[in-house]
């Protein structure tokens, strides 16, 4: 047993500290209405590959510790390597970023900044007067094809990785602009040589 003189002291002190907390700023985020502020270097949950700049060297495939990237590469008529198929198994991927570091072009493969794969689909059901609300058995959004749902510039801007020219406009908290601008610089240097 603790000495009697301490009795109740701990409780009072605890209450005092709790009371001090009542006036503090909240640190919880009301997700999904509010989104977290992510760092610019965040390694999100997309792997984005750019066909134009890829030189099909397969360095990313070799660098991947879990074998999530599978590439099929062949030589075209001009003897140049080209990628026939690339798949990234996001279920296997551990988002370590080693593929991105290994890419010699520096711009062909990126990790996007998206960290939540959920989206709202039924945003306008409640206000939709066109007769496609769920009560009629249809939902305007749910019957869209995958291609329509794929992000385009109007719906959801892709990460600055993918569009280096946009990287500057993106809010500072988003993504790995570094990698992009670094790769772009290198490419420009090469071209000007």
């Amino acid at each position: 047993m603790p000495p009697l003189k301490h009795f109740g002291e701990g409780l009072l002190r605890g209450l005092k500290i709790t009371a001090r907390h009542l006036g503090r700023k909240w640190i919880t985020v009301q997700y999904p209405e509010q989104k977290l502020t992510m760092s610019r270097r965040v390694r999100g949950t997309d792997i984005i590959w750019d066909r134009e700049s890829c030189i099909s060297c397969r360095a990313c495939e070799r660098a991947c510790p879990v074998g999530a990237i599978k590439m099929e590469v062949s030589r075209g008529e001009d003897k140049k390597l080209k990628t026939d198929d690339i798949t990234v198994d996001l279920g296997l991927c551990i988002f370590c970023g080693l593929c991105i570091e290994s890419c010699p072009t520096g711009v062909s493969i990126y990790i996007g900044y998206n960290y939540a794969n959920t989206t709202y689909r039924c945003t306008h059901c409640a206000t939709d007067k066109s007769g496609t609300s769920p009560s009629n058995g249809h939902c305007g959004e749910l019957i869209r094809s995958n291609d329509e749902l794929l992000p385009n510039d109007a719906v959801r801007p892709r990460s600055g990785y993918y569009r280096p020219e946009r990287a500057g406009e993106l809010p500072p908290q988003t993504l790995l602009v570094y990698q992009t601008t670094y790769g772009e610089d290198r490419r420009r240097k090469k071209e000007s040589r």
Partner: protein
Amino acid sequence: MTLKTDHYVINIGPQHPSTHGVFRLRLTLDGEVIIDVEPIFGYLHRGMEKLAESRNYTKNIPLTDRLDYLSSMINNQAYCMAVEDLMKIEVPERAQYIRVIMAELQRISAHLAGVGFFLNDIGAFMTPMLYMFREREKIVELFDMVCGQRLNYNYMRFGGVAMDLPEEFLPALKKLLNEMPGFINEYDQLITTNEIVLARCKGVGVLPRELAINAATAGPVLRGSGIEWDLRKKRPYSVYDRFQFDIPTGENGDTYDRYMVRLEEMRQSVRILKQAVEQLPDGEYIGKAPKLIRPPAGETYTAVEGAKGELGFYVVADGSENAYRWHVRAPSLINLTALREMVIGWKVADLMAIFGSIDIVMGEVDR
């Protein structure tokens, strides 16, 4: 009058909030008193060491993140140092400092989690743990800023670190360092002299000095027993010899001392961080290292002071791209070896306090 009692065997775990993961304890009880305990682990075994022997050196860095996932940065550092030792790679000064900053931040965050869970175990329920996670969150945000991840950082590379510090990092770190002592004092006020904590921890689960040494324990468990042993001071690696800090030790080796050592270590880490930020030099963040690591045949054992004790990597290279043997000296596992002696004679409720004060992470126990 004497009551005749039978011994009773019960299992705690593998799924139990107080076993800190999938860990099973088979207790033999006489009433409420523990007369024997047999720890059974292996439920989380992932064959990490074998896995690491089948991949090349660079691919093992993300593996080390997943050992003690509450101190991934320190694991990264220890492994990178082991390979650098094999390859004789020079690490630039700035990279050394960045590594020290990351390791000390990680130590604070690991101790915050450890102490928070420990208090949760002894029945403080959520409040202290949430307070501690509030600060841990700030540190995790700093890591997020530096490498883009919040748990498995994969930040260090052979010869340095993957990316330089972003410009917003140092101001944020300085702000945190100014706030941190205040937070630690707050925990101190809230917990240290709380009569329940005193009653539950003082004199409970004493680990005597000799046993602490003979069981090869390390870190706060060893220092709680009064032994001043810290690899950062006794066998300085990286740039630790340039900082001033103390090694906090306990006197009685009880649960309370182990808790106090952790609290004090956080203060010392803040001290080291302040000096490191001041001395941080300019320059390269990564040295010259080949893209494909192929160390010459040889072996190394490189140890650092992890948050839970001596964390060492034993790597045997045979001249190929893969390690021939890869072994981790995991502090959590070795600190557990002293558990039996600590809990015999105590009650089941005390077991939780004692077990919590060892601060283990199952990812490291079952590799």
